[in-house]
């Protein structure tokens, strides 16, 4: 139990990957709930993992999960509404970071939030409250006058990337304001988690929330299922999962650095970083049969153990990778023509990112210590005492440097963990779906650190132990607003490098 916060009896605190009975979360009056959340979020070490509402016993039940990084605890608070059309005082009015969650609740359930700065639709979900609101009629922010012009880009972009609409308000070449409208990728993921009842279907869904974070999201789902089903996994499996997650991080970061170089016309870096990603994902394929690790993570075990032979292969690949990566990274981050396009471009301050509730890479590049490997350690990270890489300049350079340093950090983590793998332990098979019994009327929270940042899955079960509500949060939910701020006072031609340097997920946001 959390000493600092549980004295009030207004909240329950649990650990990452822990389940509790839904009844154990005190239901507060909204005024009390509001005061409590506002007060907890005053501390910069605390941030909101997820805040959402769902129909429950003819009422609307609100759950707020807050990560207390110092204490390594998850604080759970709740309140209920009988009439969802009565206005509530907006927490975003006090803590802007909550804006996206209140917008989502407003869009899905129609709850009006008084004092919210910007109560706009989030993703035009198919089950939104007001079906009359259409995606091609989004209420963009406008500035009057004859001297300004608007530039609209998307939903389909020039490159091979996901769709989103970007609306620039420009004064000549200078961007005064950028607004990003998402929702094009909405597939109804959360509803499908209830409709698709087979365990394997849910694994596939989790792998497809964001296919570039297949391991991060599927691991979050599996750890959630394990928490609800009281399944403990052995140390070896925990280690293998972390190796898979770190390999995913390394591969995407390396690919991203290639794209950084492409966008500043540094051809050698573009080609070399691009080629360096290949052996990493080819190893993931040699391990699991899929370059993105789809199929690798399963509940309670794995079908693809990291054998001695694979470990030897991985060691060789990492050694070769390290040499080539160091060489090109040193070159890139010391090349004046590259630095000119990286440094002080698209800078956001620590305070801005903190206000917006940035997580993962976006937090770290601005000097904010948010990394669930540190704040909510899970699996093999519990023994690792992970210290996140921190930068402070908040510009394209910092976003590139975070990736370089994290790749180097991942190399160390993977090598350390491979030493700890016990060859004598037989690999565990996944738990057959028929043997999986989930606790009834419970709630469990599972947090993992994907390469973008904090992935959070929350499930609520009914009396029969069947999932009655499923909530997914991709780190991009928190971080899109930061990209908008980065563009202010830049030339519009700086947009591509900024967008790439964030590399946020469209489908993870749109669900």
């Amino acid at each position: 139990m959390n000493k600092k916060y549980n004295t009030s009896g207004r909240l329950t605190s649990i650990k990452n990957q822990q389940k509790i009975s839904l009844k154990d979360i005190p239901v507060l009056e909204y005024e009390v709930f509001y005061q409590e959340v506002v007060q907890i979020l005053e501390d910069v070490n605390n941030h909101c993992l997820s805040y959402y509402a769902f129909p429950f016993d003819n009422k609307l039940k609100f759950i707020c999960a807050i990560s207390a990084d110092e204490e390594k605890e998850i604080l759970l608070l709740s309140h209920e509404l009988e009439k969802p059309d009565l206005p509530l005082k907006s927490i975003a009015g006090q803590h802007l970071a909550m804006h996206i969650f209140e917008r989502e609740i407003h869009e899905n359930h129609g709850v009006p939030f008084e004092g919210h700065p910007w109560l706009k639709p989030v993703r035009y979900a198919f089950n939104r409250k007001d079906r009359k609101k259409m995606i091609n009629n989004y209420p963009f922010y406008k500035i009057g006058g004859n001297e300004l012009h608007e530039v609209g880009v998307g939903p389909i972009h020039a490159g091979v990337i996901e769709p989103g609409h970007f609306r620039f308000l420009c004064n000549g070449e200078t961007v005064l304001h950028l607004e990003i409208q998402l929702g094009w990728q909405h597939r109804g993921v959360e509803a499908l988690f209830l409709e698709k009842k087979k365990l394997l279907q849910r694994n596939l869904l989790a792998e497809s929330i964001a296919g570039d974070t297949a391991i991060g999201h599927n691991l979050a789902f599996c750890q959630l299922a394990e928490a609800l089903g009281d399944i403990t996994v052995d140390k070896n499996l925990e280690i293998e999962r972390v190796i898979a997650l770190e390999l995913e991080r390394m591969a995407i970061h390396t690919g991203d650095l290639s794209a950084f170089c492409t966008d500043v016309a540094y051809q050698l870096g573009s080609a070399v970083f691009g080629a360096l990603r290949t052996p990493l994902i080819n190893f993931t394929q040699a391990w699991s049969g899929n370059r993105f690790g789809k199929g690798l993570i399963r509940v309670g075990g794995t079908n693809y153990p990291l054998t001695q032979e694979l470990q030897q292969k991985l060691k060789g690949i990492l050694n070769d990778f390290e040499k080539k990566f160091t060489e090109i990274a040193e070159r890139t981050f010391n090349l004046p023509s590259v630095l000119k396009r990286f440094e002080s471009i698209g800078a956001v301050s620590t305070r801005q990112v903190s206000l917006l509730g940035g997580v993962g890479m976006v937090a770290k590049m601005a000097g904010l210590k948010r990394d669930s490997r540190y704040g909510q350690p899970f699996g093999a990270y519990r023994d690792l005492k992970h210290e996140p890489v921190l930068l402070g300049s908040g510009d394209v350079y910092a976003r590139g440097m975070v990736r370089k340093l994290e790749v180097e950090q991942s190399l160390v983590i993977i090598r350390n963990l491979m030493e700890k793998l016990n060859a004598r332990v037989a690999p565990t098979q996944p738990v057959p779906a028929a043997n999986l019994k989930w606790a009834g009327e419970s709630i469990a929270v599972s947090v993992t650190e994907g390469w973008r940042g904090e992935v959070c899955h929350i499930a609520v079960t009914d009396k029969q132990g069947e999932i009655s509500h499923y909530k997914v949060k991709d780190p991009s939910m928190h971080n899109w607003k930061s990209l908008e701020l980065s563009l202010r006072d830049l030339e519009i031609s700086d947009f591509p490098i900024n967008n790439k340097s964030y590399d946020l997920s469209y489908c993870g946001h749109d669900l």
Partner: protein
Amino acid sequence: MRARPIKYKVMIIEDVKIVINQGKQFIPDVTKAVVPAPFRGRPEIDPDLTVDVDALVNCCPVDAISANPISIDMGKCAFCGECALAFPDKIKFTNDHKIASNDRSKLIVKESDVHPITMNPDLIREEIRSFYGGSLKLRQISAAGDNSAELELGACGNVNFDMGRYGIEFVASPRHADGIVITGPISENMAEAVQICHEAVPQPRIVVLVGVDAISGGIFSGSKALDRSFIDKSFIDLYVPGNPPHPLTFINGILDLTRRKKNQ
């Protein structure tokens, strides 16, 4: 002023060192490249072994397996390989990555089918090969794709696969394109954009579906957030199965569609 040229020289040497250390990265002939096991490519079903057919059909999370005769539809298959894990003697996934076809029915692998997946020449319009046999520009549309197929399409142009050597490229504008390449199950929110983009491509234009989500909806099949009417009313020139498809599957599929083999 003297220092600058010297530094410049040193920098060039560093670049050359990097290039030398990289060595040759490209795959010399992508039509002959082999993807090593345990890559899950074209499945094979043993006709002689009797299994619990209901259990086999039910173990598939995406309803890709049918009974009488037992068959796997690669247009629906998510290549998770779980059927082969549950019935290892009945089903095997080979490492054959050349599984793209222009004929939807050729994606269905039946018992005792052990032959490679091929094109149906009758379905290839004559102008496709005469117009696009030497150069093909494509406009990619991610329509609720999960970004894995998109990343693999991006990888097709990297130094390893180098699809550009065949004159095949992704371009920014549909006006410059000869066809569209769709990934993702097509959300309701993207349906109109897909339609508009397709109409902006000059005739003759091809439509390529990449990945299980695009071909059949995949794990999103049945979601109320989708609008797949574009697929239902369009002529599809090429289906590229996979979750996501391997870059070699895509490149070989496009080459087989647009180029005449020397012996034909």
